[in-house]
């Protein structure tokens, strides 16, 4: 800041000059100090906003741990992991989580059997074969698949997929894990195809050109050069698909049935962990009852399962990472 004395009131100029013990930058430095405090304050606020995401994680871990610790005070871990029945709301309750875990794993396996091959082929096709204009249209159209609300998919699984599959497999019950799993698989195709395609397109052109120069055709190049080079990103998309399938709730709650069932046959109805939580939440369970606590025990099992797959994914991603 520069003052031009002639433009200012003479008294003010005199006052300035009389007070010449103070350094001349006194006023601006005060302003600067204020603005520095304001900057610090704003930075602190923004930092707190960023920290809120950590608070959410801590909230999840705390609540799941706290509520299920009271559950595990009543039920031994051994009973929880080995008992073959899950009937927490019966008069003589049994607390074996395995039927729910199996239901979750079977529906997830069916979904992955649909989503991983189809999603990978779509990714290879869009990245290596399709003309760019087609890709620009197809990719957002496929991504709409993951925008459809899951409750609508549940309706579709029960009202459309189940009758269709009943024609293929006579004797298939209306509620079954197969139709829920297939619909869930179609829902997660875009997670696999979009992320894998991004990973494949990031592979440098020179690698493909090298393969072509050796006489390889497109499909050989895609499978033997591009796919391995992009494996780190592709594995990440697979893990995301697994997480989604394990945690998916509404499709299985609507179409796979609500009865815990210790089976690995996808043609049978069975409840998943998520479906059980929904079923209990729909009822009116008093806070603190064993039924109320049982949904947190189921929830922490679900949380650990997704965490487990995320950690595996992290390790695999590191192992397959290629740097160009």
């Amino acid at each position, binding site marked *: 800041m520069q003052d031009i004395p002639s433009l200012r009131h003479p008294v003010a100029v005199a006052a300035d000059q009389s007070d010449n013990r103070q350094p001349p930058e006194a006023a601006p430095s005060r302003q600067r100090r204020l603005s520095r405090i304001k900057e610090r304050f704003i930075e602190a606020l923004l930092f707190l906003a960023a920290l809120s995401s950590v608070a*959410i994680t801590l909230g999840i871990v705390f609540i799941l741990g706290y509520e299920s610790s009271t559950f595990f005070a009543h039920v031994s871990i051994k009973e929880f992991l080995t008992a073959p029945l899950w009937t927490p709301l019966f008069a003589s309750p049994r607390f074996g989580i395995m039927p729910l875990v199996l239901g979750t794993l079977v529906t997830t396996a069916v979904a992955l059997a649909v989503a991983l091959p189809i999603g990978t082929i779509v990714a290879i*096709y869009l990245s290596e074969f399709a003309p760019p204009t087609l890709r620009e249209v197809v990719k957002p*159209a496929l991504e709409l698949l993951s925008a459809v609300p899951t409750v609508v998919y549940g309706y579709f699984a029960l009202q459309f997929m189940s009758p269709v599959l009943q024609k293929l497999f006579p004797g298939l019950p209306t509620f079954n894990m197969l139709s829920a799993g297939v619909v869930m698989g*179609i829902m997660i195709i875009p997670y696999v195809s979009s992320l894998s395609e991004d990973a494949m397109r990031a592979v440098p052109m020179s690698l493909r050109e090298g393969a072509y120069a050796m006489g390889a055709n497109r*499909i050989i190049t895609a499978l033997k050069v591009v796919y391995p080079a992009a494996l780190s990103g592709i594995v990440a998309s697979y893990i995301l698909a697994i997480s989604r399938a394990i945690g998916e709730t509404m499709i299985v709650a609507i179409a796979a049935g609500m009865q815990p069932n210790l089976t690995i046959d996808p043609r049978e109805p069975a409840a998943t962990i998520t479906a059980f939580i929904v079923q209990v939440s729909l009822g009116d369970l008093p806070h603190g009852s064993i039924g109320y606590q049982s949904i947190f025990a189921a929830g922490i099992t679900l949380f650990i399962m997704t965490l487990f797959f995320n950690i595996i994914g992290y390790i695999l991603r590191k192992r397959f990472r290629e740097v160009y």
Partner: protein
Amino acid sequence: MADFSGIIRKRKRQDFIFNIIGILCTLVGILTLGALLFDLIADGVGRLNWTFLTSFPSRFADRAGILSSWVGTLLIMIVTAFAAVPLGVSAGVYLEEYARKNWLTNLIEINIANLAGVPSIIYGLMALGLLVYQFRLGQSILTGGLTLAFLILPIVIVATREALRTIPQGIREAAYALGSTKWQVVRHHLVPYSMGGTMTGIIIALSRAIGETAPLITIGALTFIAFLPPPPISTQPPFVSADWLQSPFAVLPIQMFNWVSRPDQAFVTNAAAAGIVLIVVTLLLNAVAIMIRYRVRKRIKW
């Protein structure tokens, strides 16, 4: 020499076959989407009329409507947007513009990546234990909105950061050269310039929140509500009230879930009609997001 042309023909055939397989697999997704829309419309469009939108749920399928559930969805979305947008954008700005490279920043980043992979029903359990019973917010619109805000927070943060990253470094340097403070650079340049990308992310996140059912069932949203929350604006002083935040609620996807799980076919038709409304809103939001993204890409050339 004849051998070579044989090999070439074979390899061309391989490529051709994979082309067909690729198109077929792509069609599986597209056709399913088509079948889903067709099935829903065929089942439910006959039920869709003005009274369906303006009636409360009922024991009688032909009198039941979705008034309380779409109002609930709208109010929940307002709370979610007001909580998630300021928080998410601030967090994104901090991580992209302010954060130093240290273990704390690292922790926050890993944490956000992990939160995006947590199943939505887990957020519901957290909200049930924490918001409903520890903070005693009740099974209210406020609780529901905050739950969904937690859920979409990672999406908003990631979208904000990606939008900020597209702004060239030169813009920041030019502003600093003119004597701007960091906050002035953020407020006058970075946030306005990244608005398009951020808005796209926010709309996509909200469209996801509209369809979320499981976490709201978990915190105890009701399936049968025959009243509306108290209006936020009234003719008597003090004219505005926040009572609606404490009101119990129903939302569209839960209403649809309630109807689809009934054996009576008439209610299943209602479910299809509610599904049409839900899917139209979701697809409209997605279309708006795609349009904004397209226009931003076209307009801004650095």
